[in-house]
């Protein structure tokens, strides 16, 4: 008699499947997942996990958290990051100390692997969620991440 129970089971599973898609159909008007991109440029928000480009956040006093340790430069598999640094006298302690001059990031070479961000001991760099990254001239893809005149945030090294 497994013949008829097979038919019963078959129909039951088919109906289960149809109820799932039926629910989707009824909810599609409210919660479609399509983003109509160029139209909703103003409101479109990317997810937190989206990897647009590497940026270095600065606070209101134009201070960043990069100590110039170069771990990101070493971690990068394609040499995307270049750090130009210098030893300068710290005005507070009077000792000589390594400080960055330029944190150079070549967006054109970056594969968005995220190894630099994981390597950074002071969380000085993070992902930005911008997605319109095309430019007319590739030299504009080379970016200096620390803003001009920015300083190291005090207390980061401790």
């Amino acid at each position: 008699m497994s013949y008829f129970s097979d038919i019963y089971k078959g129909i039951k599973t088919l109906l289960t499947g149809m109820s799932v898609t039926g629910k989707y159909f009824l909810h599609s008007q409210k919660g479609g997942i399509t983003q109509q991109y160029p139209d909703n440029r103003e409101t479109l928000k990317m997810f937190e996990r989206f990897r647009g480009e590497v940026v270095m956040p600065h606070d209101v006093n134009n201070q960043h958290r990069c100590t110039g340790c170069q771990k990101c430069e070493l971690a990068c598999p394609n040499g995307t990051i270049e750090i130009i640094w210098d030893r300068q006298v710290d005005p507070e302690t009077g000792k000589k100390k390594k400080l960055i001059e330029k944190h150079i990031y070549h967006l054109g070479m970056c594969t968005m692997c995220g190894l630099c961000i994981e390597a950074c001991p002071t969380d000085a760099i993070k992902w930005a969620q911008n997605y319109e990254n095309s430019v007319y001239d590739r030299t504009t893809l080379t970016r200096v991440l620390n803003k001009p005149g920015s300083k190291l945030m005090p207390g980061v090294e401790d």
Partner: protein
Amino acid sequence: MNLSLSITKNIHDWLFNMMPETLASLVEMTLIALIYLTIFAVIGLFLVLLERKVAAWFQLRIGPNRVGYHGILQTMADALKLVSKELTGTVNADKFLYNLAPYFVIITALMALAVLPFSLEFQAFDINIGIFFLIAISSIGVIGILLAGWSSNNKFALIGAMRSGVQTISYELSVGLSLLTMILITGTLQLSEIVEVQRNGWLIVQGHIPAVFAFMIYMISGTAETNRAPFDLVEAESELGAGFHTEYSGMKFAYFFLAEFVNMFIIASIATTIFFGAWLSPFGITESLPWLGVFWFLGKTLILMFLMMWFRWTFPRLRIDQLLTLEWKYLLPLNLMNIVLMALIVWLNLTIQF
């Protein structure tokens, strides 16, 4: 020459008063042919759009919404693009059969359209073996597909065509038998009389249990007849490129494409006619306005077509052995049992009549 063209009596009489009989018949036939070609094109284009919209909604997308208001002109634009495309072909194709195949497919679709009772007077050809004619015609369509696959000299196309042959020959049986089950109640094959019988309740109500079974079997095998998913082994994009129409381009491809959708319409409208009272309104609420029948007919057909689209976007494609198992081990024996059951019910007068 006076065929039973009962499309509208007034135009018929008017034409016959104006001209000699032969000429009037010719004009009338041309008119009807044009009307049905228009219906064919409109149905095809509308259904392609509907399918894309419904598919989008099932997948939580939006679907075409750029051309025209909410995308209603999208398929027009697609058709125009296809018309303007070059008709390429393969070098070693059998040219004659290759060019003939699309016409086979659309002509059978058109012939089937002609016998459908859209409303009381809107039926081009009320033949007295209506159902039989429909079953016979719908199996000619497969010849077009076989020809297309064979003549384009492409192994994917040939495999697709062969699968189509296997599938249609098998499922043809179930379509025919499930319709025959209902013929036991009506006692006639003529479509207009089948509709008349349903004035005492739609056949799915009159025949209750076996009618519901017959309807389920008909919908499954009808979906298989039109080569739609989950029975789309014929086209199986992921396995065969595009199946039998791999080598077709431009308008010839569009013919196949439109015919597929018109076939879906035909399968749904046969189900409407046989099971759901064709153009009859539920409980006779618009009895006094016969022309409203067209809307009832199209509405019921639309619901059934939506059901087929629902199948398509829910179920995964069957393997060829599963396809044949389903037909020969399940649908066919059940169908035969169902016929016996229906015969008993009709014999013992257990049908529900209002």
